[in-house]
């Protein structure tokens, strides 16, 4: 009995010293602490937002969709470029059925490092900054405006990336969590755009006019003004007037165009008084795209750009633009490239006998198809290499010529190479982002110039103004109240800077011709700067741009009066042969299709999303 009591006591003690259940498990890591990492002060919060600049969330268009070694440029789904890689993702985009396209692939996809996916990532980051700015423990008013100004600007930037592809989207002004109601209905483009512009107004309020030196490259007040005028021009454009149900072309919204013109005028006024930013001079034109030297990270003309782009210029730029034998790479990453089209070449104006520049279709231009490159807009020789053109030297100083003519080394190589043999060349190479020294065959001088992604530069603001002012008034010469110039005078600023002088009066006075003129100017001035594809969509001019079964054209330059055998021309030594006389023939590039219809003006929302959400309305036609 004594034992019994002792044992019962013993058992009771054991139970008592055992701490209450559950609390034993609480020794593990607990929640709440880790948020403090970023809510400490200005630097930590900025470090959270700065990932946008460092982690490809701002998309570098010179390396966009790094699928297959960067050689995919958005220009090659518009009429700017042809793509010479057999398996390039563009071919599925140009085939038109974008719903079937893998979602991490290229421009229309919404996963991986596509612009759409990056935009969502960016929105999440800046929404946290805007929502939780008051949680930052130590923050001065200036630091607060630095953070908020950038956050509002970037929210508008990323949202614009979405709506210019999808049309109107839900308003993403909250930090979403998986337990929130995610089945948010879409708004129309105009509602979306107006919300975005309130963000830009906030950004204009908070952002400094010029950053301290160590911050230069972040968006400033001018960036916000310029993006606002661009966004307002988009909102005035024909495509954007559509609701979510159908797509039709009812022309511009004149009132919105007027507001866009006023916004552009405000931007230009601010540029004019800015100590640094300006429209660069005619002599400096080439260095807008090729920044000289290793210690040059921006140009005064850049208003909004990706300062910290860290791309491998040697590999990715080469495979973007250059064919064998200019680059010394082999295999899938070396052989294909993006080739400018005859369609773009035809847009460059020609100097007529009166000294004025006319489109080549204008009889005043005196255009001769058998001497096609004579007296063209100086930007032609800035942007494009034509067959037989002299282009740099080899290491020994020997002159090299572009071998893209019929029977030359380049077509032969393209047609026999495993990675390009299903494609057809256009005859042209791209020069705007390339320099002769940057090539393995020659000096391998990849550091001589720097190329970065420029989202908005000064010239664009003038072109935005010209379009907005014209479409608001229907006249090239009318000056909108509150503005200091007409559409024509804004356009002439850009023409004169390019060296082609004022627009001839015969064109300026004809509204139909003037519309073509500002659109042509935009295509040439902003060629391959990630505008043309969005422009032809917002203008709704697929029918005008992509004509016939093979809308993309190239040139067949047939050499004549030269001493070389066909085998010699075909050989790699052919690049040293100076050929001067050719018969020119414009040909269909039969491998390029542009199978776009009305539905292709907006991208389809991903099938998974539409299948998962009851309220998410798919775009018409998909």
């Amino acid at each position, binding site marked *: 009995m004594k*034992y*019994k009591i002792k*044992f*019962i006591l013993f*058992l009771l003690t*054991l139970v008592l010293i055992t701490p209450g*259940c*559950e609390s034993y*498990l*609480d*020794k*593990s890591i*607990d*929640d709440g602490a*880790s*948020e403090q*990492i970023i809510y400490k002060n200005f630097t*930590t919060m900025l*470090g*959270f937002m700065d*990932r*946008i*600049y460092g*982690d490809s*969330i701002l998309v570098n268009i010179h390396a966009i969709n790094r699928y297959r070694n960067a050689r995919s440029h958005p220009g090659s789904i518009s009429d700017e470029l042809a793509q010479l890689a057999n*398996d390039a993702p563009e071919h*599925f985009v140009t085939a038109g059925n974008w719903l*079937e*396209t*893998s979602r991490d692939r290229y421009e229309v996809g919404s*996963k991986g490092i596509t612009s*759409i*996916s*990056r935009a*969502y*990532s*960016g929105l*999440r*980051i800046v929404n946290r900054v805007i929502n939780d700015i008051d949680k930052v423990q130590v923050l001065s008013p200036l630091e607060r405006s630095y953070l908020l100004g950038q956050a509002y600007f970037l929210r508008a930037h990323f949202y614009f990336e979405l709506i210019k592809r999808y049309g109107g989207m839900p308003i993403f002004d909250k930090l979403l*969590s*998986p337990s929130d109601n*995610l089945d948010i209905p879409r708004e129309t483009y105009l509602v979306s755009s107006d919300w975005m512009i309130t963000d830009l107004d906030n950004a204009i309020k908070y952002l400094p006019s010029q950053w301290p030196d*160590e911050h*230069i*490259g*972040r968006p400033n007040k001018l960036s916000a003004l310029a993006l606002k005028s661009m966004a307002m021009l988009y909102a005035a454009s024909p495509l954007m007037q559509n609701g979510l149900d159908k797509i039709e072309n009812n022309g511009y919204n004149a009132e919105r165009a007027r507001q866009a013109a006023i916004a552009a005028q405000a931007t230009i006024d601010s540029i004019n008084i800015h100590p640094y930013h300006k429209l660069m001079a005619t002599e400096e034109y080439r260095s807008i795209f090729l920044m000289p030297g290793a210690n040059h*990270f*921006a140009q005064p003309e850049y208003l909004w750009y990706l*300062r*910290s782009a*860290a791309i491998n210029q040697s590999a990715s730029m080469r495979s973007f633009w250059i064919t064998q034998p200019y680059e010394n790479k082999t295999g899938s990453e070396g052989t294909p490239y993006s080739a400018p089209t005859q369609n773009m070449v035809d847009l460059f104006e020609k100097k007529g006998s009166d000294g004025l520049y006319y489109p080549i279709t204008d009889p005043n231009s005196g255009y001769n198809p058998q001497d096609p490159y004579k007296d063209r807009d100086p930007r032609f020789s800035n942007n494009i290499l034509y067959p037989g053109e002299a282009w740099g030297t080899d290491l020994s100083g020997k002159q090299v010529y572009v071998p893209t003519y019929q029977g030359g080394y380049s077509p032969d190589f393209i047609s*026999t*190479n*495993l990675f390009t043999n*299903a494609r057809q060349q256009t005859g042209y190479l791209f020069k705007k982002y390339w320099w002769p020294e940057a090539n393995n065959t020659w000096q391998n001088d990849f550091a001589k110039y720097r190329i970065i992604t420029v989202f908005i530069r000064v010239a664009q603001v003038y072109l935005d103004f010209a379009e907005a002012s014209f479409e608001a008034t229907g006249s090239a010469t009318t000056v909108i109240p509150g503005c200091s110039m007409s559409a024509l005078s804004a356009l002439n600023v850009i023409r004169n800077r390019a060296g082609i002088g004022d627009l001839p009066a015969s064109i300026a006075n004809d509204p139909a011709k003037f519309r073509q003129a500002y659109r042509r100017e935009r295509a040439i001035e902003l060629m391959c700067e990630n505008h043309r594809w969005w422009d032809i969509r917002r203008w709704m001019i697929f029918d005008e741009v992509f004509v016939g079964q093979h809308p993309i054209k190239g040139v067949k330059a047939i050499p004549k009066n030269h001493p070389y055998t066909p085998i010699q021309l075909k050989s790699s030594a052919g690049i040293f042969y100076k050929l001067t006389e050719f018969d020119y023939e414009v040909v269909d590039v039969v491998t390029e299709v542009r199978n776009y219809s009305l539905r292709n003006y907006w991208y389809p929302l*991903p099938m*998974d999303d*539409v*299948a*998962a959400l009851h309220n998410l309305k798919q775009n018409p036609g998909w």
Partner: protein
Amino acid sequence: MQKMKNKLTFAFMCFFLFCSFSLKAQQKEWTGQVFDEKLNEPLIGVSVTIKGTTIGTITDVNGKFSIRAANNQTLVFSYIGYTSTEFILTPDLNLARVIMNESLKVLDEVVVVGYGVQTKASSVGSITTTKGEDLLKVGSVTSVSEAIQGQMPGVISISYTSKPGADAADIFIRGKSTWGNASPLILVDGLERDFNDVDVNEIETISVLKDASATAVYGVKGANGVILITTKRGANKKTEVSLTANFGFKQPSAAPSWADYPTSMKMFNEAKANDKGWDGLIRESTISAWENAISGGNYGPYNEIFPQVDWWAETVSDVGYQQNYNINVSGGTEKMKYFTSVGYLDDGDIYKSFKNDKFDPSFNYKRYNWRSNFDFQLTNTTLLSLNIAGKMGYRNQPAFRAVTGAPDDDSWFFKFYYENSYNSFPIKYSDGEWGAGSTGEGNLMLFLSETGSKMNKSYQGFYDIKLEQDLKFITEGLSMKGSLSYTSSSAWESTIMRGMVMGMDELNAINTNIRYYREYDYSNPILLPDGTVTYNRITNQRFQNEISVGNYPVGGSYDVFSGYSRKLYYELALNYKRNFGDHKVSGLVLFNRKNEEYTQGSGLDYPVLEEDWVSRATYAYKDKYLFEMNGAYTGSEKFAPGKRFGFFSSYSLGWRASEEAWVKSLAGKNLSNLKFRYSYGTVGNDKGAPRFNYIQSFENYPTYAGLATFGLYQNYVWSPLYKEGKLADVNATWEKSIKQNLGIEIGLWNKLNISVDLFDEQRSQILMTRNTIPSWLSSGVSLPAVNLGEVKNHGFEIDANWNDKIGKFNYYIKLNFAVSENRIVYRDDPYALPDYMKQAGKPIGYQEKYIATGNFQSLDDIYNSAQSQIPGGLHNTLIPGDLYYIDYNGDGIISPNDRSPHAYVNYPMTTGGLTIGGDWNGIGFNALFYTAMDVYKEQIANYLWDFPTGNIKAQPNTLDRWTSDKPIQSGPVRPSVHVNNTYNSLGSSYTYVSHAYLRLKNLEINYAIPSKWLKFVNVARCQVYVNGNNIFTISSVDSRRDPETGGQNVYPIIKRYNVGFRLGF
């Protein structure tokens, strides 16, 4: 320090070993003979001991014994399978005919259940057991997980590799009920421990708990089933020493082979032409030069101009070796019982050895196991048990390049057998320089012999102390048990690096071997004056420089600590068991906690904590009607406070119909057992759940991934950058499983035992990332797992065995067969997806494949077919002979949406094992056939498509390709050859094929040497045996692949042949 510890352990073991031999007293000699009751034949090897001492003997070949003992002492006769008999020695006692009765196995057999044991008769759970002695016959496989393959129904074990020291198999029980972690809870003597390295000689039983009745006590950890490994303990009997020695030979079960080189070259040209790649064709002169060389025998692994290296033959030896030895001693007295065991395993290599004085670049594993289990009867009511066990393992391998980061990443090495070129360079050139491929890689001989080696050393110690106190002074039938367990394991790694080899960089690499890639111009033969032909060397590329030839620096590290784990576990239990007339009652209340501290290399991880409260009550009326209830309140620290603890319970009923009088009168003696049992219960699974899923984290963004830089004329780098970590789900908790089991056990004629189990499981709350999160939330952030998924799983198992004898031939047949079938019920599929794209309704792990119905016969076929979005699949790049895929959704485009779900998954749904064995006059045999059915896998791509990685190496059946002149087949045939196989090699019904197989898993033939021959050497029994493992396999899969293997990047599956003996004295 570690060595010291080992020594101490060993000394301790020896001490107890010697304690057990006590001195004999000088007493009278007793003699007699022991007989079997039924057969009336002498029984050999019966243990005869004096109660309370360790003195004893065993009966000889005639069943006779003699022992010295005093009057009034008690003699105990014991023999496995027989009821022990005792005699008090009196002067007139006649021992001339001691009769022993066979024990009624079915009734008295006990089974190990969660936190206790039960008699098999009263058990209502679905539990299968296998004995350690059965595992000893499986051909000396080195890991327990592989040894149990085919032994028990519903236990599926898959070995993907036979790499020495790393050949553990994947185990799951009753198929899969979750797409998360489906592996069972495995306990060694009650604690989660690494069981693969437990020496099979130490194992008493392995008990597999399958239904809720058996597993509910494990609560949040039990839903995937539980495997309990119980080690041997001593018994009150004479000291018995057994010694097992095994010597094994091993060979890979499959080997690669390829088409000859001229054929490969010709097919390469055909493939190039098919790809329209006119730039890389091989000249006819080259092909004919090779043809001449090969017909003239002028080629080989060291031929400079015509190199041909069969890397497999050069590096894999004909036979590898393995040895294992175990000696164990067991016995005991009333007061103290012991089992001690020491084992050694040396698992050798099938690769040739390139050992040198600096390092040993071979695959091998050496393991030392030790165990001492003691039971001390401290008082009449107090039992103290003490287990000390452990192992040291030394795993050696050539120095892998940690290319993808994982220290044991085999993917870099083994793939070369599939991908390497055979004919582009010799092993060594005539001038003694190493050969290499055009990028400096690919010389496996160089790799194996020169790169160095890596040794992983691992130590495990298991320490248990248990105290059982009978509390009958409080109330009859009450007892208490307390236990404390400690497990420690630690690991070290040593590497010896000879430097950078084959172009692959390595942390400790200092230097490299010189390699050359040389090319010859076969189109211009040069006739030498002596009549021989030679060729101009056109390429002579040298890779890497070295400091001084022949004196390579050796870098490396010695015994770098790479991780440890310490587990402390304590348990307190109250047991109650009492009979009240026809009513039998038992109960259990138990509490335990676990704390595991661990680290993997750097930094201490947060300790893992667990806590369980367990209870069980059983009731039996007249041993006929059985009822059992189990409950567990268990917790897991993986979840948020408030979501950590759950209550799990099970209820089971049993009816032993064979005990009913009316059944007895109907069936008579034919029916020895008929039992029905049913259980229902809930169990949980937290195994796949990520830790701290409930916490939102932020991380430093690595600067190498991209910098934020600003400044006009200079770079200002802004850092650190931060990144949002995975989003949190504060509601996350365990998977919940509702299990039902219906079992029928039938015993007939005391020979045949059949048990059939039908089971059904509903698993819900499976943690998963939602599939209906729109892009605007899922981009750029990781989503948390939420408890959403549901799976149902059902199946049946049959376990039958027949034991009988024909004259002196005893034999047994055991058959087990299990089928399971699972279906995803809910996985958050987007509502508007077509059904074939939804995951619901399909088995876990189902694969989506294109359906290849044939080959394009003509260009018309191609252009009339749907356009394809597959790379290389555009109309203008396809050629006749390429595979024709069905446009499954009929939208006119072949795209990933045309992949349709395949009926079979890549783990077996049906498994079976058939064991046949017997013995006659000391000659015995045991054979196990194992089959895994309904299993499909993707074929190894490098065995399917010619020219792996572009090398000129064709498959042996390359000529079976489609050609226009062959008759059209009903299904797809081998497509046209390509160098770029992107299109044809997509996962399709052509590449995803059945990998079902039937295999003679084990075969043993043994012979027990008659004990009359053994008397002179004082040995009681001696059995010699030959056995083998994976002896032959029947399968429809490519014979160059073992159907069980994981793929190309693993150490091959091997066959083993062993000879050995088992000795007892």
